[in-house]
């Protein structure tokens, strides 16, 4: 019993430290112990959020116009600093609340699929991801492209059942290639995606579908002055110029 009372008293003491913690006013000796307590104490975590918001308002009381050099250096650094890929939680939360500006629109095809919605469908379907990357990295790349403000979707079609969608973001210079119903090529063959501009076809990337005919890969893509996209079958590793027939294609209208 007395152990329990001691423990209770110890916890009460720790609860009292939330305010000091929110002010970064705990010393090294107490910090680790308090953070351990915080991890298991919801009441303290709830209180901490309110205290931190309060502290942020207090900071407005000492707000000061920073030197102009701060803005110059920060915005200059931003230009050359890559952002971290979104965590899946954050991307989902954003999709749930935003939903604007992510709709795919490329006139001519007008595949009015919101890239964000598509990403959810992809995740739900549990499509097999590029094997050379860890699954989580690939998912994050997919999310990043799919939720980019300038994401556009192009649907390539051919004579058969196979469809391939290319969701691309010019600002990221990346695209997701998602296909289904694709015939699995012979072992020494591969599919190759091309953009076609005034000067002819340019190779984008090669990909092979899984056993079930689906594919999902992230690749670099610059649509530049492209007027069309096409997919051919090529020898493994791809070709500098297409050697096979165009199996699937889509026109692009700027």
């Amino acid at each position, binding site marked *: 019993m007395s152990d329990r009372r001691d423990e209770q008293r110890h916890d009460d003491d720790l609860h009292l430290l939330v305010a000091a913690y929110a002010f*970064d006013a705990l010393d090294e000796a107490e910090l680790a112990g308090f953070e351990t307590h915080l991890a298991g104490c*919801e009441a303290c975590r*709830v209180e901490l959020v309110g205290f931190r918001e309060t502290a942020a308002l207090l900071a*407005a009381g000492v707000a000061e116009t920073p030197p102009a050099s701060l803005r110059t250096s*920060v915005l200059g650094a*931003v230009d050359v600093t890559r952002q971290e890929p979104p965590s899946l939680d954050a991307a989902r939360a954003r999709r749930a*609340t935003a939903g604007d500006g992510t709709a795919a629109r490329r006139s001519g095809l007008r595949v009015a699929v919101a890239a964000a919605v598509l990403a959810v469908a992809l995740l739900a379907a549990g499509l097999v991801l590029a094997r050379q990357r860890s699954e989580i990295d690939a998912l994050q790349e997919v999310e990043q492209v799919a939720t980019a403000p300038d994401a556009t979707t192009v649907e390539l079609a051919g004579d058969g059942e196979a469809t391939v969608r290319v969701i691309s973001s010019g600002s990221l210079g990346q695209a997701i290639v998602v296909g289904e119903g694709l015939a699995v090529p012979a072992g020494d063959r591969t599919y190759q995606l091309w953009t076609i501009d005034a000067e002819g076809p340019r190779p984008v990337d090669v990909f092979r579908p899984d056993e079930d005919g689906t594919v999902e890969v992230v690749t670099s893509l610059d649509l530049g002055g492209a007027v069309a996209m096409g997919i051919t079958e090529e020898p493994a590793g791809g070709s500098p110029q297409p050697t096979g027939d165009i199996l699937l294609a889509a026109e692009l209208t700027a």
Partner: protein
Amino acid sequence: MLRADAGGGTAGDVWGSVPGRRDAAAGTALAADPDGALMARVARGDQGAFAELHDRVAPSVYGIARSVVRDPDLAEEIAQEVLLELWRTAPRFDASRGRVRAWAVTMAHRRAVDRVRSEQAGRDREARVATEPPTMPESSAEVLDALDRERVRRALDALTAVQREAVVLAYFGGHTYQEVARLLDCPEGTIKTRIRDGLIRLRDQLGVDP
């Protein structure tokens, strides 16, 4: 260095050590974040939106760093780190954990405190503060809504003198509560309580949902 993550810390450090924090934040029913929409655009790599967000939060970030470290160059360095971190980690920002401004200010305060406590400057500063009565530093940001400033001042005025003293030394001065106790020649337990009571009253005064 007082913290394992001092200096090299990332954005995640501020909340990162607290598992289950999403639930905690969700329970507080925070009003909509005025910087939320801007942050969503920054998260998608929009540099124009970031410039706008920068201008909104930089005065508070720089101001709180300056308040703690005093040295303007060091404050600028801290502000730069925090603001760049805001850009870098924007795609991972989770609005359910609190507002953008609170995130940035929390980071700035923590880093400022880490700097002063890890340096000789910290001790010199302590000696100097001991001979000066604690006051809230004057704000000089033209961009800052005078209403905000007035509101903070009124909220601080609503504290008892001893609460205000403890809050100002701990938060604006960046002292541990033990240091505050020494500076004011009070028992540590008393200071702990004053900081807590003061912060609760400030929270209520400033209209933050508990």
